[in-house]
């Protein structure tokens, strides 16, 4: 069997039924081996999108997504997508072609040291030197990508290794001796966590992306409801907890909900679950959490103490940690009442900000559009976003009801992520509508994926809030540079309805909220991708806003 055939067979054995990719000189043998294989290949128009599609697929399927690219530029084009997956702990297995072994190091045509390039943004990388190594390497790649704190793994296969033959053995069990992810909760610190939580008068849960990765939704809810603890999330953790729940407060952070940013500063005990205290979430590391006790639960030991020193650290899969914590707590406390002073404070803050924060005065605004989308999209519909104002508006104004139905490029902040990622999500779960909450700037970057959505029949919805502006940069230029615009205007180009139609997709431009209502309904029913072009005012800002380098207490509400 050839190395290329062994790769495809090993992927099939891992349960891969779908691969996103683009062929080239150095992976021709792999593409030849795809003919007649039991897995579907989706041809992308740019390798970056292949990685994002694999990422979107992985986040919904909760197993590794796979993408292919050739050597050199094919491989480097994948890097943005790989780095995006790395920043958000998403499991993808990227397979690149490489120049033949004898050509490596000779600066051959389309040769890139992709192992070197990818090192800082992959969990691990492999380069098989003989075809017989491929089955075990693929098995290890999936194991490393999917287990522990998930992440991308690169497999870079020289062309002659793809072509050469060997007697293949496909192992069922593998061991990686330097890799032993901690899964079961460390019990030694659990009793201190219980003590702190029982003593706390103003406890708060800060749920991060780890809750979603681990599928610990019911466990999180059990903890919150047992002690009646208000729940804020990080942006990555948005949707870890139903945002219409009576204890929900929404995301904190640079563009977090005002009441969430406010209440977390008043807490006396924070339980951070699968969160990493990123600068975008907590503002200043030195200021955040002062005078409060912090309990930190995470699967990655290196996250403990990285950005924030904590009082109690519980390392392990948060699903199992939460389950144990709830079990221990329920032996000591009876269910608490819902009218404690702390919960009254929660209500008071929500009430205060709902009355104080002004709506942008216009017929169609981002906020109104997103509320309309929420009203019409079924709770199990999947939502992803592009990056910038559209993303932050989604965070603020689109409530996630069913846990785990929302994701975004939260760590790397990759413009152009949302659209291909929505295609990956649709591939993972074709039965539900999938929406990419987009802005014009980001959509421009990967709009050629329209070809993929049309030809491969992934009818997703691009919810394009269009101000023909790199809106977030423009907002910062308005705020910090005295409205001196530099490099942000898109000058009404292109016409997105025509762009959609050029690819055979549906384009709808709306001029009123009634038209938006109709367009969303049509898009949900449509069997081709739909771009809804929603003109919004370029001066509409995202508020609240915690300026970079400042703390949550310095939040600007715009009121």
């Amino acid at each position, binding site marked *: 069997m050839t190395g290329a055939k062994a790769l495809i067979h090993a992927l099939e054995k891992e349960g891969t039924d779908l691969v996103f990719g683009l062929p080239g000189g150095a992976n021709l043998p792999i593409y030849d081996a795809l003919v007649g294989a039991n897995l579907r290949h989706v041809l992308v128009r740019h390798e970056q999108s292949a990685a994002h599609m694999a990422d979107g697929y992985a986040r919904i399927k909760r197993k590794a997504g796979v993408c292919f690219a050739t050597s050199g530029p094919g491989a480097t084009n994948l890097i943005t997508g790989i780095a995006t997956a790395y920043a958000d702990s998403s499991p993808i297995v990227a397979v690149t072609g490489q120049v033949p072994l004898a050509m490596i190091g000779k600066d051959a045509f389309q040769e890139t040291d992709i*192992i070197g390039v990818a090192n*800082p943004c992959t969990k*691990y990388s492999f380069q098989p030197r003989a075809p017989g190594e491929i089955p075990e390497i693929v098995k290890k790649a999936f194991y490393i990508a999917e287990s522990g704190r998930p992440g991308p793994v690169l497999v870079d296969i020289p062309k002659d290794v793809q072509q050469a033959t060997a007697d293949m053995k496909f192992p069922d069990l593998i061991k*990686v001796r*330097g890799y032993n992810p901690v899964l079961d909760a460390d019990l030694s610190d659990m009793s201190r966590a219980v003590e702190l939580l029982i003593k706390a008068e103003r406890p708060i849960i800060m749920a991060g992306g780890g809750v979603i990765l681990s599928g610990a939704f019911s466990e999180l809810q059990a903890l919150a409801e047992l002690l009646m603890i208000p729940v804020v999330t990080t942006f990555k953790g948005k949707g870890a907890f139903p945002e219409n729940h009576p204890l929900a407060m929404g995301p904190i952070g640079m563009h977090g909900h005002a009441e969430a940013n406010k209440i977390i500063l008043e807490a006396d005990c924070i339980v951070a679950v699968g969160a990493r205290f990123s600068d975008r979430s907590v503002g200043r590391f030195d200021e955040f959490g002062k005078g409060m006790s912090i309990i930190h639960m995470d699967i990655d*030991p*290196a996250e403990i103490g990285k950005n924030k020193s904590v009082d109690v650290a519980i390392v392990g899969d948060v699903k199992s940690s939460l389950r144990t914590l709830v079990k221990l707590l329920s032996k000591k406390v009876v269910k608490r009442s819902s009218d404690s002073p702390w919960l009254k404070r929660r209500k008071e803050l929500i009430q205060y900000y709902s009355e104080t924060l002004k709506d942008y005065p216009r017929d169609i605004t981002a906020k109104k559009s997103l509320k309309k989308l929420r009203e019409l999209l079924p709770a199990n519909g999947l939502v992803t976003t592009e990056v910038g104002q559209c993303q932050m508006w989604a965070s603020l104004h689109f409530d996630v009801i069913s846990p785990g139905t929302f994701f975004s490029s939260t760590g790397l902040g990759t413009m152009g992520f949302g659209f291909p990622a929505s295609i990956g999500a649709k591939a993972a779960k074709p039965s539900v509508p999938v929406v990419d909450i987009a802005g014009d700037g980001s959509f421009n970057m990967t709009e050629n994926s329209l070809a993929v959505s049309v030809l491969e029949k992934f009818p997703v919805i691009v919810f394009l809030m269009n101000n023909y502006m790199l809106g977030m940069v423009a907002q910062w230029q308005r705020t910090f540079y005295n409205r001196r615009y530099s490099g942000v205007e898109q000058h009404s180009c292109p016409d997105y309805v025509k762009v959609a139609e050029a690819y055979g997709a549906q384009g709808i431009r709306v001029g009123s909220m009634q038209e938006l209502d109709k367009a969303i309904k049509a898009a949900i029913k449509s069997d081709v991708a739909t771009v809804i072009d929603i003109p919004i005012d370029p001066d509409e800002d995202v508020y609240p806003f915690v300026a970079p380098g400042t703390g949550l207490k310095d939040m600007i509400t715009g009121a």
Partner: protein
Amino acid sequence: MVTTQNGSWYIVSALVENKPGVLFRVTNLFRARSFNIESITVGSTEQKDLSRMTITTNSDERTLDQLVKQLRKLIDVVEVKVLDTEKTVYRELALIKMKAVDPTTRSEIINYSTIFRGNILDIGKETITVEITGTPDKIDAFKNLVEPYGITQLSRTGVSALPRGVEV
């Protein structure tokens, strides 16, 4: 740990897979996370598929904690320990080439190197090359002593270390 001007001096010992690219992954990690290391040595061990890396660093406790955790996170790193300098044997080797033309200088250098239990590796018409083995402190002391003669070239290996006694 030895207390120094900038935090503390630590010796970190890591067992890593003996295969291509591992040193790159480790040093790239140090670069990417701005960990300042003083020296790093890599060599074979009693097990042919494992190498031992010895890293010395001046840092505060929190940075050291991160350095160790991030190292452990690397797939090719099998085991990481911060060695207690009190219970560790550690040595560094230095080759020092000095200007030595006149007979007085030459005999002084030879004397010093005897006191420091060094070896004279090479004597030319104008230079003497000495090998000194010991703790980094000892090498520093010798270096300071012979500096006035004019050191023309110097090469240090970095620290290699093992715990004392039966501790693994």
